[in-house]
């Protein structure tokens, strides 16, 4: 039963696009900033346009608002992210992380609202030359918005070793798997560039859809 109609489909899309343009942020990288730091992110692929901001009160926790627009259903969800760095392995030449991700919010499709949320884990490991990560996430926002389990894996290599303050480049391969609904794999070769607090990623998926992510830390 419709409760209220705060977003029309068109205005939601316009808002998402505007937010993406205004906030240069993010991707699959750090989910938590330094204690007292902010990150703003925008992830865009064939499945969704996502915009979020994360504040880290400590080096192991992150909280902030998110807005997702699901391109396949036209549904949306807005709410609060809660991320927790369960463990970090700081080694001399590498770093590994284990995160627990969650979010709670309000899902909306054509004016019909209901509670929604997601939960998952992410593990990553990187050196200055190599990168690998795995993330899974179950989103429950109703059949009309999004209700599925997603797995994403990445491997990457840096073609050169960059020093602090210079441009860092990565060549990466991302694989997305949707075991329940789409029953298919999508593979996306991409380039990650980052320098200082700015990170950008761009790629084209195996089915031809573009992907573009931005992130900035404050």
């Amino acid at each position, binding site marked *: 039963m419709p409760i209220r109609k705060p977003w029309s489909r068109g205005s939601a899309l316009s808002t998402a696009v505007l937010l993406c343009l205004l906030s240069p942020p993010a991707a699959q990288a750090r989910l*938590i900033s330094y204690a007292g730091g902010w990150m703003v992110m925008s992830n865009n692929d064939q499945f969704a346009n996502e915009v979020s901001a994360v504040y880290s009160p400590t080096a192991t926790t992150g909280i902030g608002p998110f807005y997702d627009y699901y391109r396949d259903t036209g549904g949306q969800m807005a709410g609060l992210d809660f991320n927790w760095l369960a463990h970090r392995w700081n080694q001399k030449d590498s770093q590994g992380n284990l995160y627990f991700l969650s979010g709670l919010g309000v899902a909306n499709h054509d004016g019909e609202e209901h509670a929604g949320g997601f939960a998952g884990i992410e593990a990553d490991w990187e050196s200055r030359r190599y990168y690998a990560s795995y993330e899974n996430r179950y989103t429950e926002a109703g059949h009309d918005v999004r209700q599925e389990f997603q797995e994403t894996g990445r491997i990457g290599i840096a073609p050169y070793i960059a020093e602090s303050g210079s441009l860092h480049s990565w060549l990466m391969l991302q694989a997305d798997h949707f075991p329940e609904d789409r029953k298919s794999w999508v593979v996306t070769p991409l380039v990650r560039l980052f320098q200082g607090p700015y990170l950008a990623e761009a790629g084209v998926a195996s089915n031809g859809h573009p992907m573009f992510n931005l992130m900035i830390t404050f």
Partner: protein
Amino acid sequence: MKKIIKNLTMLGLVLLLAAPAQAATAKHIFVTVNGLVCDFCAVSMKKIFMKKAPVEAVTVNLTTKIVEIDLKPGGTLDDREIKKGITDAGYAVVGIRRD
């Protein structure tokens, strides 16, 4: 014998008092850190330490894994503050050297 013991005790006291004095007057601090693998690490270090009043500049070397903290004249930063700053940035201190 008593005189020797007395002199050694005095020398020990002088050395004990001199160590913190040297730490307090050091202008450059070199912190070896584990986990420094990307430019975000450097950004975090700079954001954390540049908020501290005694700090004049922070330089991060990803190759040597050393964070150099330059202090303002008369500025001091004890090991506890340094370790907390590195931990707040999300990394681990291996060693601290003052120059």
